[in-house]
Structures are given as structure tokens and as C-alpha cells.
């Protein structure tokens, strides 16, 4: 199971520190790790809809903010030395702008509603896209918002009054299983980039990662005809054979929308051509060097069979999905492949 996590304490403390830059970086990493742990403990786990209360918004000056402060201080010394009331005025105007900017920066996040808007399963190697919806329930514009995590950040966008927007965090994946997003943040540098305000959210999000499809898979096992007429191709949707009650997993294309409009009942069309052929994809009969390779091959087969609208069944040690088709079936099969416990298999073997 791969997971996106902040560096663990071990990985930082062990390497020999060679330069001052490294020393600083190590110290910063240690501080930020402490801060993250502290914030997690303080805030607890968030629901998938969170309102940003002012207590959970943190703010620190940026590098530019530090330079700005230094400049203002220098100007204060100059004004005091020359006893020049106008340059005192300029100095204090800049200082006040800094203070006001700090309040604006923090306020830019307060009261935003951040919610998880889903993450579709991906194949290992693709980027898992976490969708984070941010809603501005206020009368003023929110400026330059950005959603970020350790390895990714979203586009920067403004939110008008009452506006809502979905930010996308693309997290790279490497292995099948779940890619976890234990923490992400929302931040802003508005107005002058003198301060960075941010909030951490711990929604314990995760996204399913299907196995990586095999690059050059062997041919799938042959289909077995159950009724004998194999001249039909696998589309098997030729002959309309009546309606039946809609079941979860039926393709939306098969829903009798006209009937639904009339009666209000969801019905699925049945075709006599369905179930023309079926195919068992069996882990035990799949070629491959190791479990992962076989899972990859199986993944490719499932994807191909689904694309061809064939009925297919999947047999894994301990689990079996009887042949059928449809998006729900495809997902069930790929999920089983994604979460298959290869370690347990080797124990048995």
C-alpha cells in the first residue's frame, strides 16, 4: 500500500549533515514536523466537510515579509535620525499596511467551507486526482486560494461572493492499493505576499489505485459460449427482450428513460444477445512471474473485456465474481485486484 506521507523522523535524522544549508534544512524539517504533529493533535480528525474557523488558521511572514519588515525598520531608524516627520509618515504607513495585510491575509481564509468532492480510482502510475471543493459563504471576494499537499498543489484561484470551486490535487501514485492523503492544506499569500496564511485539514482521504495494467499482456483465456451462437460479436445487444427492474450496476445506456418519464420507475432494457459468451479470468491460470505481474495482466484483461462489453468473471484465491458486465462489475473486479493481499498468498503457498 502506498501512501503519501510527510517524511518520517528516521529518514531525516540519520544522514550525516555536511553543510550549513543542510543543517538549516534539517532544522526546518524538524520544526515543520513538530508543527504538523502538534496541529494534528490539536485539531483532531476532520469530517469531509469542514468550516475554517479562525482558530485553525495559521499565519507566518514570508521571506518577502521579512525583507519588508527589515526595510521598514531601517526607514524608522533613518526617520528618527533625521527627525523627519514625513519620512516617519511613510514608515508608519508601510508598517500599518503590513499589519492590515496580515489581518486581510488571515481573514481571506476564515469561514471558508472546504469539502472533499471525491477522488476517482486510477491505475498505478497515473495521478490520483483529489477534488476539494471550496465554498465562499460570504459577501466578499476571496483572493488567491490554493490547495496544497506535500507533493502537489492546485491552481491558484479567486472565489467571488457565494461562489464555489473545485480545486484538484494531483497526487502521483506508484503502487496499487490506496493512495492516502492524511493531510492537505489551503493557503493564501494575499495581499502583498508578506504573509502566508494556511489551514491544515486532516480528512484522512484516500483514493483507490488499481494495479498497473501490464504493458504487453498475453492473450486472454478463450470465451466459452453458453448458448452456442458465437457468430454474434461480443456487443450482444441486438435483440430487445423486454424490461426488468433496474439494478445497481446496470449501464445507464440500458435504462429505459422514456418509460421512466412515463411511470417514474427505473427500468433496464434486457437484450437477448446478452450473455452470449463469458470468460473466466482466473488468477491461478494467469501467466506471470509473480503475483504483482499476474495482477497487472488480470487488470489489462478486465479492462479489455469491459471495453468489448463482454461478460467476464474473475476468480482470485478466496474470492470469485461470476461473469457479468457493466461499470459496477468492472469496478468490483479492479478493486479486488487493487486490494488483493499478495503477502497472504505467499504464506499459503
Amino acid at each position, binding site marked *: 500500500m502506498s501512501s503519501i506521507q510527510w517524511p518520517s523522523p528516521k529518514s531525516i535524522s540519520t544522514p550525516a549533515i555536511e553543510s550549513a544549508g543542510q543543517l538549516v534544512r534539517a532544522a526546518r524539517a524538524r520544526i515543520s514536523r513538530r508543527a504538523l504533529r502538534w496541529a494534528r493533535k490539536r485539531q483532531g480528525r476532520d469530517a469531509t466537510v469542514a468550516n475554517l474557523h479562525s482558530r485553525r488558521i495559521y499565519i507566518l511572514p514570508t521571506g518577502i515579509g521579512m525583507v519588508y519588515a527589515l526595510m521598514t525598520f531601517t526607514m524608522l531608524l533613518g526617520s528618527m535620525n*533625521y527627525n523627519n516627520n514625513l519620512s516617519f509618515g*511613510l514608515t508608519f504607513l508601510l508598517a*500599518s499596511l503590513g499589519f492590515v495585510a496580515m489581518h486581510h491575509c488571515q481573514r481571506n481564509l476564515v*469561514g471558508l467551507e472546504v469539502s472533499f468532492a471525491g477522488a476517482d480510482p486510477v491505475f498505478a502510475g497515473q495521478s490520483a486526482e483529489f477534488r476539494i471543493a471550496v465554498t465562499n459563504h*460570504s459577501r466578499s471576494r476571496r*483572493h488567491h486560494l490554493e490547495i496544497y499537499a506535500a507533493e502537489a498543489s492546485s491552481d491558484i484561484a479567486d472565489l467571488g461572493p457565494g461562489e464555489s470551486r473545485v480545486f484538484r490535487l494531483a497526487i502521483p501514485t506508484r503502487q496499487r492499493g490506496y493512495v492516502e492523503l492524511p493531510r492537505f492544506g489551503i493557503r493564501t499569500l494575499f495581499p502583498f505576499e508578506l504573509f502566508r496564511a494556511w489551514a491544515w485539514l486532516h480528512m484522512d482521504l484516500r483514493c483507490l489505485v488499481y494495479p498497473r495494467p501490464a504493458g504487453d499482456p498475453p492473450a486472454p483465456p478463450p470465451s466459452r459460449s453458453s448458448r452456442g451462437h458465437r457468430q454474434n460479436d461480443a456487443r450482444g445487444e441486438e435483440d430487445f427482450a423486454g424490461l426488468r427492474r433496474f439494478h445497481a450496476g446496470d449501464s445507464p445506456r440500458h435504462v429505459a428513460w422514456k418509460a421512466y418519464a412515463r411511470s417514474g420507475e427505473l427500468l433496464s432494457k434486457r437484450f437477448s444477445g446478452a450473455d452470449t459468451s463469458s470468460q473466466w479470468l482466473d488468477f491461478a491460470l494467469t501467466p506471470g512471474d509473480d503475483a504483482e505481474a499476474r495482477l497487472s495482466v488480470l487488470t489489462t484483461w478486465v479492462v479489455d473485456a469491459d471495453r468489448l462489453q463482454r461478460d467476464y468473471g474473475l476468480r482470485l484465491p478466496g474470492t470469485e465474481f461470476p461473469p457479468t458486465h457493466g461499470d459496477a462489475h468492472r469496478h468490483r473486479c479492479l478493486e479486488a485486484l487493487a486490494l488483493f493481499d499478495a503477502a497472504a498468498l505467499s504464506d499459503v503457498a
Partner: protein
Amino acid sequence: MWLKKRPRSGTDGSLLGSLPWTLLALGVAIAPHLPYLPPWITLIFIACAGVRMQIERRRWRLPGAWIRLSLALLCFIGVLGTYETISGVGPGSALLTVMAALKLLETRRRRDQFVLLFLSVFLIMSSLLREQYVWSLPYLIVGVLVTMTAWLQMSVSEGSNVKLALRDSLRLLTYALPLTIAMWLFFPRIATPFWAVPIDTGSGVTGLSDEMSPGDISSLSQSDAVAFRVRFDGAVPAPQDRYWRGLVLHRFNGRTWSGNEPTIGIRDNWPVEYLGSPVDYEVTMEPTRRHWVFALDVPYEWSLDMTYMGRQQQLARTQPVDQRIVYRAVSYTDFRLEPEMNRFSREYHLRLPDANNPRTRELAGNLHAQATDDRAYVDAVMRMFNEEQFYYTLQPPALGRNSVDEFLFRTRRGFCEHYASAFSVMMRAAGIPSRVVLGYQGGELNPLGNYLIVRQSDAHAWTEVWLEGDGWSRVDPTSAVAPERIETGMSAARFDGIGESWGLSAPWRVMHRLTLAWDMINAKWNEWVLAYGPENQRSFMQWLGMDDPDFRKMLLSLIAIVATLLGLVTAILAWRYRPPRRDPAFRLYRRFIRRTGVEPARGEPPLAFLERLSQERPSLAPQAAEVTRLYLETRYGGTSGTGIERLRDAVGRSFGTAVP
């Protein structure tokens, strides 16, 4: 190092939106320096700005490091060659301008633009060090506004919305201004600078010199520049009493009168009897870079630190007046100065160089012999100036070695210095102790602000003679030659006299009035803004009710006020970011639901909720059905205007109470 070859790529045009604004901010910052900058620096800046803009537009490459380095070196040498120093406001702002121009040529990313905006702030600051006019305040606000807009413009990622950035920076500025004013008022001012830095204000300060050599080709300062302004608590003294004592010259070497360095006297020893009623007033004095402080003849009390009275009743500061200062003072125009004189002092004030001005001595001897007493002799000399052919002119001919002889017997043309010097020598030659006083005389009353404007052209020299019983008495020989100089003052004489004689009276008067109005604005500006120093701050704090204000108290109140104002900013922001007002129908519906005590699930539609409510609270079912129906009608039907009223009634009825 920074000369290391970086891969040079073309610019990508990403700064195209923000660069013009950065350039505008720099332009605004450089504008007040233009009259002082050597033209080549201005040209370099304009060239760099144009080239940089073109580079961004055409996606060209930025010039290489060697070109930039050699340009920087050349410019530095150029600045050094022009100013022969790099410290001070002039060379400093020239260097800043050059830096901004060269930085433009290596501005590749946003980080570089920040450097440019920091430079623009420093340029604004240095222009304020150079000059502090009334319009400098609006200028600095506009300068900061443009800089901040450019700053915001840099952060805008998608497209450039200048209007939004301008509005945002205006709002931020509005919030910041009260804070700025509070900090400005309460930040404790200190009197002494940390380190002495020469302020080259560009123009020389006109003022009185420490010596007086009538006969050198020195035409009297004709400058209209203000020396100081005076506001009187009571009535303004009569013109003949408006003598502003500066320094006293008592040494004469035959050509030049000079005095002592400013000394610190001890009050107990001052042999002065103050007569009549005191005159209270406040002086706002322009910097002179000299030690002398002016007060109405003779000063009694003054509120200026490090300022002491010398033995001859002149005020001097231990530190040169290189900033505008404000002080209150009390003077007595009627006084008896040193009624008793010791022998040493008497001999001292009678000294004349032996082999000098023989004809003057002879004349003095003759006149004194004819006079009955010293007073009659003084009158005789004054009569001589008045009745014989002496002329008052600001462009007198130069005088030779025996300047007094030449003046009295040959040229007979001069201004106050010539007459004061000649008169004083005549007195000494006749055995009457005398000395010359330098200061200002007169001043123009500004009826708009009821204060006196004393200009450099009002500078004056007069004499004091010691008479038995009266002590040192002021005698102004100029008044014998040109009485109008004393009675109406220089500027008034010039405006009115010339204006009327040219038949231009009306326009001249309008002009004059406008000048006076402008002067009043400047006077207020100087008094309230520029001269706000330790003393003014102290009295302002006392006026606010702070007793015995000190550094600590002011700093604490500053912190308290800033915290309060920031709390106010927080409150305003919270109000600005408040949730939008809900639909009135929805609010009535919410009120009904709250009273039922059943909480709707998140996203539960009204009809579904009605169903659940009817099951959980069957007694409420009919009212709930009514309210829900009316709510849905009002909210989504949107036709009848009375729906809201009926909903209000229904909600009220459902619990037997009226809903306001």
C-alpha cells in the same frame, strides 16, 4: 558566484502584465528627484525602462552578465565623478535610480520585481528627506498607492485586472491610514540624532552671518524666504517694537564687526530690569544651520532645550538649528539693560583700532564737544543722518580700508549695516559704549492667520549705546535715513509702494493676498506637521490628558491604540465577510423548524422533512403542511407578493404568537 554563466533563455512575456505597473511605480518614485538628478542618469533610466519593456514584448533575451556588470561599474564611476561622494541624499538617490535602471535589465522573475518595488519605496523616502512641502504628503500617499497597486498586480495570475488591484490597495490604504496617524502622533520623538549626517538640501540656507563687514560687496539678502513665523498670544507689538534680537557684535577691527561665540550664561548674573507687560508668542523658525535663536528684544523666557542666553541677552543653541524648530517665548519690549556698568566692560565697549578712520574720530570729537550730554550727542548724530545727504540703498558702492570714513564723507550710500557700523564707531569715538546687534526687524502681518511672517529680507542691524541711567539703549540709525523701512517693513513697502506707483494696485493686492493665503497653509503645515518634535509632542500628550508624558507612557499608549485599531480592522473585516442575508421566506421557515424541535438532516428537502415531521410530531402536522406549502410557494412560485405575509401569519399562528 553571481557571474557564473546561467543558461540564458529568452523572456517568456509573463511579466508583460505587471511590468508597466512596476515601471510606473518607479517613475512616480523618481519624479521628485528629476530636478536634482544629472540628466545622464535620467536618460539611463528611461533607456533601461524602454529596452526592458521591448525585451518583454518581443521575448528577447536579457543582456548578459558582463554587459550588466560593466554598465554598473560605469554608472558607479559616473555618480562618483558627478558628486565626488556617495553619501548624502543627492548621490544616494542618484545611486538608487541607477540601481533601479540596472536591476530592470536583469529582472527575470517576480522576485526581481519585489526588489524594484523596494527600491521605489526607498526613492520616495529619499525625496522626503530632501524636501518637505505641503504637497509632499499627498505625493507620498499616491506614491505608496501606485507601488502597492503594482505589488498586487504582480500577484495577479490570470489576466490583469487593474481596477480590482487599485480598489484593493485603496481599501488597504484606507484601513492603514488611521493606524499610521496614531503611530505618527504617539511614536516618541527624540531630540538628538543617533549619528550626524549632513543633509544637503540642495539650496543654501540664507540667514545672518556671524560677522558684519559693511563695505564688502555684499548686497543685503533680498530673499523672500521665510526666516521665521510668529504667533502672538495677545496683541501684535507695534512695528517700531518688532526687533528680533539675534547676535551681538562688540569687536571692531576697523572694517569688520564680530562677536563672541555663543556662550552659556547664568541667569542670576543678568543685569536686566524688565518693565511693562510681557509679550507671549510662539516662533516657528526655519533651519539656519547656525546656533542663533531669535526672540523679540529682550527675551525673558523660552521653551527650547539646549538653548541658553548669553551675557548680551542673545539666545543660542548648543546645536546648530538644522531643522525647523518651534518654541514659545516671553519677551519684554520695555526693559533696562545693565544699568550699572563696570569699568572693564565700559572700556571694552569703547575700543577702536588706533590708526583707523581718523576723519570719523575728528567729526565725533567735534559733535560731542558741541553736545550738552551723551543723549544730545546721540540725537545730533541721528540728525546728521537724517538731514544730510545720506541714502538708503541695497546696492551700495564698495568701501576701502577706512570704511567708516569713506562711507560718512564720500559714498553716503548704504543699508542698515553701514549705518549701524558708522553710528557705533561715532559713539565709541565720543566715549559712549556701543555695540551692534544683528537680527530681524519688522515682519509682515498675515491677516489670514494673524501671525507675523519674518523673511530673510527683514534681516537688520542696529546699535545699542550705553547711557547713564538707562543702560543699553537701542538706537536704530537706519530709521533716521529710511523711516519707512522700520515702520512698514521691507516686503510691505515693496508690494504696496511699487504696486501703487505702477498703477497695478488691484492685481498686485490679489496676488499678495494669494501669497499670504499660501503662506498661511505653509505656516500651518510647518507648525502642525513638520515641527512635531519632542516639545510639541509633549504638549500634545499633556493636552490629551497624559500627565508627565515620557517615552514609556507614549510607547504603551501607542501599543494600546494600535491594538484597538487593529481590533477595529478585524471587526470591519468580519463584517465585510459576513454571510449573505438569507431569503426572508427561508428565515421564517427556519424559525418554524427551530420551534418544532426536529432537526432536518443535511440536504433534506422540505417535503421529505414535512413527512418525517408529521410522523414524529403528529400534532404539528397541519400547521407544518401549511407552512411548508406557503414556504415553497413563496420561494419557488415567485408570483404573488402577499405570500410572505401569509407565511408570516402561518408561522405566527402555528405557535399562537405573532412573528415580528
